[in-house]
């Protein structure tokens, strides 16, 4: 019963009383603790085809990315703020349509954990 891909992907809902126990957290507060060497010239994440995102009903990437790189713009397109990325790879693997371009940042760039 592995996760379905593409159009068969359907979101599930937690029971309401369980979902209500979840707080809403300001991810930026957590990100402030992270050190990045931001590559101002090259982004290492990109949306392959925005039309596919438009068809994606559930857009799970807006939720499971641990640092909130993916947000929904007013015009419905997915915004990618790659600077916050910690290179975990979840988006490449978790996107139901495998529609996220993912490569490693250039050498020396990206997140630089101080503790780990």
């Amino acid at each position, binding site marked *: 019963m592995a996760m379905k891909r593409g159009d068969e992907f359907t979101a599930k809902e*937690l029971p309401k009383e369980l979902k209500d126990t*979840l707080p809403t957290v300001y991810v930026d507060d957590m990100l402030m603790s*992270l050190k990045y060497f931001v590559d101002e010239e090259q982004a290492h994440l990109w949306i392959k085809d925005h039309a596919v995102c438009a068809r994606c009903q559930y857009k799970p990437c807006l*939720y499971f990315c641990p640092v*909130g790189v993916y947000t929904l713009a007013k015009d419905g397109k997915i915004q990618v703020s790659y600077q916050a990325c*910690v290179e975990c790879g979840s988006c490449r693997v978790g996107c139901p349509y495998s529609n996220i371009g993912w490569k*490693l940042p250039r*050498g020396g760039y990206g997140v630089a954990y101080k503790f780990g």
Partner: protein
Amino acid sequence: MTHHSTPAKQAIQFDVIVVGAGLAGSAAAMVAARKGLNVALVERGQKPGGKNYFGGAIYTHAIAEVLPDFMELNPPFERPVTEAGFWFLHPDGGMTRMTVRGGKLDRAPADAYTTLRARFDPWWAEQAQKAGALLVPKTTVVDFIRDSEGAVIGVQTDRPQGEMYAPVVIICEGVNNLLAQKLGLKDRDLEPAHVALGFKQVIFLPKELIQARFGLQNDQQGVAVSVLGDVSLGLPGMGFVYTNKDSISVGLGMMLDVLAEYRLKPYDILQRYLSHPAIAPLVEGGQLVEYGAHLIPEGGWRDMPRLYTAGALVAGDAAAMVNALHWEGTNMAIIAGKLAGETAIEAHSRGDFSAKTMSRYEDRLRQSFILQDLQQYRNFSRFLEQHPQFMDVYPRFLNDALGNFFTAYGKPKKQLFKDIYAALTQRRPLLKAAGDIIAMGRSVMGW
């Protein structure tokens, strides 16, 4: 894939190129360099450890196999693990603890030490440098260079004039094994149902406060526990708490497909876990010094790429060497790195880097516990997938059962056992529960 017949004129030539200065990579480089091989240890981060994030604790049996006198070199461990076990969090705020403390765990050097990768990995890579390996930081390997027969003879980095040549390339790139995939050792990318996303906070707390809250006498004692039950909303996942010298690592791992399907935000789940009545007092007043996340290749055997080809080997997370049930991954990475290093030495002594010689690496892995365990537990992750009760029903049953057991409320004990029996059968009919136990036994024993 760029095909070069002969290396460029002043080519950058090594005997071995190791991709990734993590636990596996530095071990491979150390072993190979010690035998006089000219080793390049290529790390994409500013320095080793900057890209690694884990629970976590490191097992010294693996370190000792590569660096017997490691304690004299005072490795930057955090605390010896002198208490280990499981905590079950109840949704009602309670907690059941099942831990082992002291006794065998008080041996020195300890079996396991809690660790922070950005502190440990640079030291571990330094041992490889001391053995003679050249650490090449801030350089990302993006492709291979192969000869006319397809054997790997070098790597392409993303730097201008970025080709490096060596008859043996040891791939220790970590869980996102895109290079192994590019080399054709694996036909498809990771699967959401086979990887867990680990996310954690490192919280600064004065040493004395940690020792008081965890019942530790001094900084030569430490706790490493797995946390089950309410930590991941009853969904497949496992939490953890590790005490470091002056911080604690608190986090959890959840299957990526679960996070995607239920559309859950990791940082919300982590905050909920941190505010659980049994956890909150342990972190109270602490200061968040780092939040991070990393994938864990829980698929193990089922997701393992081919481990060798002409001129190349794969070790560590890149080879999905993780045994989720026993929290083992770091030791397998280190020992696999060592065995890869030994294979490189053998190939150089023979002057033959064909697939046949490289296959000696897999033979070495078969003789070690690594492939035996991974094979034995090959069905375990599928088992967990098909039996979510172990993450939800049984921990809750255990909480209730032990909860009832320890509360004397003046009813005849017969009634007590009826309540405990009911607590199970309401959630899971007896026959099915028995079936689950047998299924778990088979998946653990590898039948």
